[in-house]
């Protein structure tokens, strides 16, 4: 029954728009696999994609978001790994694809999956409570002078936030104790509540408490400032946050957001998704989302993407090794 409809629909599509490639198309609902819990940055991104795909009719099949946040996202990776050849599942990956195999000895390698596209880069910002020190310099001095180590909250253990904390320690000589929380949202409220002194959340995770004037961004861990100049708070835009390097703290880290299919999918299937996501990143919903979450635009596919992943992967491995987080 549905086959007939699909064939009819496909035929209609061919006649209606001749230039559209008549290649492979998903015949079942497409599952966006999220390697994090409900409400986290990946989940929000998946729901935005779901909405953008549906509103702009980019797919004939429905889109389903499936949350596989168990074991800090390891669940999602193993799920993708065990779905070889199933082109109805697409993973929103982030730096866990490099870090989890190292820290938890997870038998996983991103090379086993089929890369589709790198769609964004996420920034990290050093935030402190609005009642705390006002600049990076003051912050580091206060941390050094403090009797007990400054507490820094973050998501999970031996992951991006934890690595950044270790490098903060290494570069400044101040002592921090790292508090692992289940999500960035939790790390944000704990900072507002004064239970921690600082965090290194992504812009999206701290956006609302920043706008409410409860936290202060000290610097962004990137070579250049964030490009968005529209005012976010009453007085500041993302672009007003200095880079850490400007403030004399030479630490940089960006996190990828990329889409992967399971391994052993056909060339046609891979191309279909490359096409889908290149359309998706042109939608107003997507652009709006990027600006709101202060994500750095990037779109890489094919060889460029592989090259990027390889460089990024070895950089992450180096950081994890230096931080001492690689499990023996």
């Amino acid at each position, binding site marked *: *029954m*549905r*086959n007939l409809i*699909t064939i009819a629909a496909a035929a209609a599509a061919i006649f209606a728009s001749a230039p559209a490639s008549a290649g492979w198309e998903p*015949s*079942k*609902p497409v*599952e966006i696999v999220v390697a994090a819990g409900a409400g986290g940055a990946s989940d929000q991104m998946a729901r935005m994609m779901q909405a953008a795909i549906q509103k702009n009719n980019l797919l004939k099949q*429905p889109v*389903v978001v499936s949350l596989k946040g168990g074991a800090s996202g390891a669940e999602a990776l193993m799920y993708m790994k065990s779905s070889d050849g199933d082109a109805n599942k697409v993973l929103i990956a982030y730096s866990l694809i490099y870090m989890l195999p190292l820290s938890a000895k997870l038998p996983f390698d991103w090379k086993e999956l089929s890369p589709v596209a790198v769609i964004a880069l996420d920034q990290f910002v050093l935030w402190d409570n609005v009642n705390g020190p006002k600049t990076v310099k003051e912050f580091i001095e206060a941390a050094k002078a403090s009797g007990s180590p400054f507490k820094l909250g973050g998501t999970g253990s031996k992951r991006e936030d934890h690595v950044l904390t270790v490098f903060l320690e290494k570069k400044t000589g101040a002592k921090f*104790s790292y508090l692992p929380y289940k999500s960035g949202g939790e790390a944000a409220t704990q900072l507002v509540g004064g239970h921690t002194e600082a965090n290194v959340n992504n812009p999206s995770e701290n956006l609302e408490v920043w706008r409410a004037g409860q936290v202060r961004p000290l610097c962004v861990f990137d070579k250049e400032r964030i490009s968005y100049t529209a005012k976010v708070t009453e007085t500041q835009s993302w672009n007003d946050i200095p880079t850490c390097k400007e403030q004399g703290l030479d630490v940089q880290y960006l996190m990828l957001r990329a889409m992967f299919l399971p391994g052993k999918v056909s060339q046609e299937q891979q191309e279909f998704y490359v096409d889908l996501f290149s359309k998706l990143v042109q939608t107003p919903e997507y652009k709006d989302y990027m600006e709101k979450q202060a994500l750095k635009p990037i779109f890489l596919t094919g060889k460029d993407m592989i090259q990027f992943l390889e460089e990024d992967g070895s950089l992450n491995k180096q950081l994890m090794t230096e931080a001492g987080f690689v499990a023996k």
Partner: protein
Amino acid sequence: MSNAEIEIAVDDPTAPEENSPSVTSNRAVDVAVSLLLLALAVVLAWDNWRTGASWDSTGPEAGYFPFYLSVILGGASLYGIGAAFLSSKEAMETFVTRAQLRRVMAVFVPTLLFCIAMQFLGIYVASFLLIAGFMRIVGKIAIWKSLLTAFLFSAVMFVTFDIVFDVLMPKGPLEAAFGY
């Protein structure tokens, strides 16, 4: 709570027959369960010891709590074995009679087969077989009623989960033949 809810409803008109022989006593099961728990405690304690069960500068390590919990579980199981041997009351109590065991197996075995079948036939076909078979064989309900109920229930579940709500359930050759 335990088995309190059963005691209340024993006024059932078809109360279990009195003279069915006992298969095993509560004491025997209690000892067997305690031994199993003890074995589990030993395995988990060993695994957590390997993970690291000490108290370092940042508080307890990953294996600290599970390790000591395993020790507590092991201790309580040992105590349980001793207590079971000393209790003459438990030795008297029947765990199940033969007739009861047969009835429990009458529902457990089909459930087990259902779970196995689910992997090959998909959940909907397996549930059709389970419901129809159980109603006919255990419940002695007319065959047309059994088949109809089973079909309707499975079909409603299929429409609800796989079509309306897009919850993807395990499916087998039959669904594949229809293009799902």
